[in-house]
């Protein structure tokens, strides 16, 4: 088997699983997902090993038709790192979700269990598609898969407020799809191809291309929930069941972000100009500061974690002006690695945090922050999980979040754009504030009615949090993986 088959498997195994989930029914789909989880992780790790070993992206021309006529998969270091992340987060979530969405032998299928497993597989397949695809229209298909899998995840509980949140999410996501598709059509009209690598050699800064890029960027920002297009995220991510929130915050918003990276640094390296990149990072900085302040002000634990996602997404956009203003330099490489490690570390930390918060809310029967006193005694493991994940979000050494934020900070200073460094520091302090607020109340002695017994799945959440911290222990050379095949350095 050639290495080119690996990306095909990464996309098609979850896709096939999603489709056959329908006839298999809830119990069959659950067992299939649990079987696919280790298999998919093995494929992702194999991809990372091949990319790292060859120091080159994996390419596969589908049907032997090379672009621009056909479609090709292209898996570079960024894709490989994110695929491993997705496989771990999906697998962990799947095993965690057995408690809530499992179907015991001989029991009838329920609506929630029927829907959850194919939706989870669809999010996995779609995420891998955003990472493997190299064509602007295939990206659109991936975005549609992501949206139509994520939206019902939000509404799984079937309550009025979650339906409202899902509908609002759908409106934002569809607006994003329309804007993105408009841009794709213009791009084809301007260049006669949609392949990212071929486009890079054909488009210049002509007016239709710039308008297309602006439309696509706006659409992708709505799906990534960058402030001010974040309004849909807090109610959606806070209203979903814990397992769903974990994949929504960890992976779904990253799918559209990766496509944005392909657009800015693959299709149009250097074309949008430093000013546009400054605006993007300005929105990111606003998201960091306002999102963190909003998280500090929340009364409900799940909403606090959701607003924390709004803030952490902001960090992803700080890399844009740092790369745009110093293309091809060591500084740009640092900013790139910092941004990607931020996406990876946040995925692990936020999945862990949502699972931990879900366990607390289930045990306490509520998620009001001022009433969680005693949770530290009743639920020590979820509390530790929350704290560890919080370390990564703050950027405290030696966590993965520290590595990401340190690289971004260093790049900002090297690029002479000290204001981003200031934002990173303020964001870290504010994050420390809202994490401390939860932990300090939780560790107080309180009524803690239940005896301290383990909650089902708490070990899984803890492992994810530990991974998010351990990322910071990786030798710097390992981060070299995400540099392989960087599109802004040429195909």
């Amino acid at each position, binding site marked *: 088997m050639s290495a080119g088959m690996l990306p095909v498997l990464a996309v098609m195994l979850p896709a096939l699983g999603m*489709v056959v989930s329908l006839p298999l029914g809830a119990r069959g789909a659950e067992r299939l997902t649990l079987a696919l989880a280790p298999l998919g992780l093995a494929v992702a790790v194999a991809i990372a090993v091949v990319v790292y070993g060859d120091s080159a992206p994996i390419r596969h021309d*589908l049907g032997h038709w090379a672009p621009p*006529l056909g479609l090709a998969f292209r898996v570079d270091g960024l894709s490989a790192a994110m695929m491993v992340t997705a496989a771990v987060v999906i697998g962990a979530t799947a095993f965690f979700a057995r408690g809530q969405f499992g179907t015991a032998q001989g029991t009838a299928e329920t609506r929630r269990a029927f829907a959850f497993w194919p939706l989870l597989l669809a999010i996995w397949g779609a995420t891998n598609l955003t990472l493997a695809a190299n064509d602007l229209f295939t990206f659109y298909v991936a975005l549609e*898969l992501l949206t139509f899998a994520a939206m*019902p995840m939000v509404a799984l509980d079937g309550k009025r407020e979650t339906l409202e949140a899902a509908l609002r999410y759908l409106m934002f996501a569809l607006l994003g799809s329309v804007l993105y598709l408009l841009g794709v059509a213009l791009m084809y009209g301007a260049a006669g191809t949609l392949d990212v690598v071929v486009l890079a050699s054909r488009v210049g800064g002509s007016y239709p291309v710039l308008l297309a890029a602006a439309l696509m960027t706006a659409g992708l920002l709505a799906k990534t929930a960058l402030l001010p297009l974040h309004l849909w995220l807090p109610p959606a991510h806070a209203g979903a069941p814990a397992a769903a929130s974990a994949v929504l915050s960890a992976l779904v918003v990253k799918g559209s972000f990766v496509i944005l990276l392909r657009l800015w640094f693959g299709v149009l390296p250097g074309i949008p100009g430093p000013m546009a990149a400054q605006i993007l990072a300005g929105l990111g900085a606003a998201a960091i500061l306002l999102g963190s302040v909003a998280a500090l002000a929340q009364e409900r634990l799940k909403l606090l974690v959701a607003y924390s996602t709004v803030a952490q997404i902001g960090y992803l956009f700080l890399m844009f002006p740092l790369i745009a203003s110093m293309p091809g330099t060591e500084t740009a490489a640092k900013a790139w690695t910092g941004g990607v490690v931020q996406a990876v570390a946040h995925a692990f930390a936020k999945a862990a945090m949502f699972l931990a918060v879900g366990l607390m809310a289930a045990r306490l029967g509520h998620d009001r922050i001022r009433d969680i006193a005693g949770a530290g005694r009743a639920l020590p493991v979820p509390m530790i999980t929350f704290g560890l994940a919080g370390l990564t979000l703050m950027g405290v050494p030696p966590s993965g979040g520290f590595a990401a934020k340190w690289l971004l900070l260093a790049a900002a200073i090297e690029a002479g754009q000290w204001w981003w460094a200031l934002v990173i520091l303020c964001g870290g302090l504010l994050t420390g504030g809202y994490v401390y607020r939860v932990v300090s109340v939780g560790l107080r002695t309180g009524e803690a009615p239940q005896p301290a017994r383990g909650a089902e799945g708490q070990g899984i959440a803890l492992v994810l949090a530990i991974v998010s911290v351990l990322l910071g222990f990786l030798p710097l050379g390992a981060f070299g993986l995400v540099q392989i095949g960087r599109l802004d350095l040429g195909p």
Partner: protein
Amino acid sequence: MIADLLIVAAIVALALPVVLGRSAFTSVALFVAYGLLLAFAWVRLDAVDVALTEAAIGAGLSGVLLLGAARRLAGGPPVEDAPPGKAQVALIGVGCAGLAVALGAAILALPDPAPSLAGPVMANIAALEVGNPVTAVLMGFRGLDTLLEAAVLVLAVVALWALAPDAAWGGAPGWRQPRAADGPLALLARVLPPIGVVVAVHILWVGADAPGGKFQAAAILTAMWLLPWMAGIAAPPPISRAWLRILVAAGPVAFILAGFAGSALQGAFLAYPQGYAKAVIIAVEVVLTASIAVALALLVLGPPAEDRDA
């Protein structure tokens, strides 16, 4: 030229009341007419495949879906949200007008003649053994996109069913329609389906070499299934039926397996064996048509409902 200008003027004239209309029902009715006019425009642009799809899916099936939504909204409680203020409406209007002007300017600035892949498609179409370039692109050169879009349809069915009330789970989808004893609907529901099925098979078969294909054929099949339901003659099967679920999944499964067969035999996903390309493409398309037709029908029927009386 004058005919084209008339079509364009009519499209704009119909689009405005769709947006400005006060009643959902009127807007939907005008939207269907608008879709049919768009189909005309596609015919004038020599894009017959797109015209067929626009008429069948854009105007037809979407129209039915929207009519159902309008009917449900009319029966529900009044909307609680305050209507947008004048300033907000003005802002949206200015934004949309600005975008329209920017898009218009961009389209005028596009290179002429337009860069296109039509040449390479025609140069390589022989390898896929089909005569219709649209089919060659959808099943060959960009087969992956079509495969994944078929999977999106399965996902849409899952997503729709996920919105069902828990108590109704496993039941039959959609509302129970009153039986139309006589009148045009009862007659059409009995007479049209056999004819429609033959037309659909024809459209699917000629799709390999002439305009037509699976999506258009599936839309017709869907309509032929929905007609007897609307007339109250036939009831849809419960969503727990195994055959129904297998039918929805069969098309994408067949497509993915054909893709993996290409990997195993030809060394690339979705590579068709030489000499058998057309056979494989048609076999996949036949299964896909059945799956798409059932999925589209299920999407129109809606999730299983507790109170199934309209």
